[in-house]
């Protein structure tokens, strides 16, 4: 059993969002970077749990990004995983990232590829589906539960207003979200062993991104809140009906 977990790097959830260079670049100054929560809490931890059940499981991590992101990959390795690959490039767009990961997957032949539901900065929710299409594999998006029985996976995924239970034979691609696993904190042993785990930088293949970000904007600030006294809730209802016209 060989699992690939896709790890991306995102600004911390409390980071102040602002832009520089004429609103064409995210302002990284003073911003803490973390492993994308969906990748860490759900995709990686679920893979680790599968290895705990079947110790012969091999977990690879992959990240598409420059050398400065090695620290993030080591953090992921401290939680678990046997070996990591960093595809040495600046991630162009989701298509570019997926194409690079696919190139690795074609050499390594994974039984299972886990991604996060989405990156919390770009919110593409696309890389997993793209990998699946490149490799002509089934894709279970937005999974909340994952169980393995031999070569067959039983996966629960979120759908409008509920959930669906699917069954598919490996190999498959799964995008992971809340419910898959519980967040873990790396322990000292994990942190120590992460230092010596193999982290290989590999060169990217030539792929042209299909999209590019031309600029960023911040939403217009709110006009300011209208406060209504607590003893007059009818007034709130009147305003919602007549002024905001929400119902």
């Amino acid at each position: 059993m060989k699992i690939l977990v896709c790890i991306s790097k995102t600004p911390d959830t409390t980071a102040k969002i602002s832009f520089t260079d004429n609103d064409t670049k995210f302002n990284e100054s003073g911003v803490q970077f973390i492993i994308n929560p969906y990748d860490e809490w759900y995709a990686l931890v679920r893979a680790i749990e599968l290895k705990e059940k079947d110790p012969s499981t091999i977990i690879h991590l992959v990240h598409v990004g420059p050398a400065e992101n090695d620290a993030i990959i080591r953090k992921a390795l401290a939680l678990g995983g046997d070996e990591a690959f960093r595809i040495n490039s600046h991630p162009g767009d989701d298509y570019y990232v997926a194409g690079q990961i696919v190139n690795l997957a074609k050499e390594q032949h994974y039984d299972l590829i886990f991604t996060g539901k989405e990156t919390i900065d770009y919110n593409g929710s696309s890389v997993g589906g793209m990998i699946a299409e490149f490799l002509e594999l089934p894709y279970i998006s937005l999974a909340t539960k994952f169980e393995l029985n031999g070569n067959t996976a039983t996966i629960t995924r979120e759908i409008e207003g509920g959930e669906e239970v699917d069954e598919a034979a490996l190999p498959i691609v799964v995008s992971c979200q809340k419910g898959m696993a519980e967040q873990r904190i790396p322990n000292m042993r994990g942190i120590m062993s992460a230092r010596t785990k193999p982290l290989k930088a590999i060169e990217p293949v030539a792929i042209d991104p299909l999209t590019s970000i031309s600029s960023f904007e911040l939403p217009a600030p709110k006009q300011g809140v209208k406060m209504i006294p607590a003893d007059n809730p009818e007034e709130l209802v009147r305003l919602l009906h007549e002024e905001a016209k929400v119902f």
Partner: protein
Amino acid sequence: MSVLVFLDQAEGHVKKSSFEAASFAAKIAEQTGTEANGIVLGEVKDDLQSLGKYGIKKIYHAADAQLNQFDDEIYTALIADTVKSSGSNVVVLSNNFNGKAIAPRLSVRLKSGLISGAVGLPDTSNGFKVKKSVFSGKAFANVEIKTDIKIITLNANAFKVTEGSGTATIENITTQIPRRKVNVREVNVVKGEVPLAEAELVVSGGRGLKGPENWGIVTDLAKALGAATACSRPVSDSGWRPHHEHVGQTGLTIAPNMYFAIGISGAIQHLAGVNRSKTIVVINKDPEAPFFKAADYGIVGDAFEVVPKITEAVKKLKGQK
């Protein structure tokens, strides 16, 4: 050249989010001087011709029972074939659960750029740029697609449904349906509830409600308004409410017409998932709660006293018993 919109159905009925996608597609067609067509997969009970009122000229319909159950791989194959046979150069889908599964596949299959989570019409004055939501609703990016075919998924409630008087023509398509690799064992959908992702009105509760036994005040107000219910992360983490109600940076991102927050402090990760809502109402007993800074209307008070009165006032206004 034309625009093709994927019209998603569930149990034989075209989804509301697809009306938004159809109106959006029609507007793009108008803007670029072409036509908007739709594709429907599976058997439907609705009158598809009437979808013409959203500006759709022709509907490609594959009315095969094997397509009633969604499958992203099969749907992708059929949509991609239709994009090619109809010569479409813009493909529109809803940024919902199904759209998120199909759009990335289509992007690879057609080797065409994808923008997911669009919040407005494309700017075609110089290239093809679409504004999309990024940083979980905290900002927008203008993204350019460089390929001939452009794929866009539209965020829920981001584009107003426009109704006219047209009638669509129907073209039945019959094709070889690929083998299904994923077997659907169970589908569990909560009936009769407004699905949160596409709800226009949402009433949400936080830890300020103290426990699941107190949720009646939230659900009563939601019922009176015809709203969906949501909650903050600690509420779903504690099992007070189901996981799918969790909104925020690590939950669902929503942008309803109204978001009504009860006993929620307004942490940055919570705001990220809801701050694009058109009108935000906050009920909190703490006047310093950060949520008030992001709100349009607010009441400082005890939810247990204030909310039932609001529900009464709503019922009175709507003439409900």
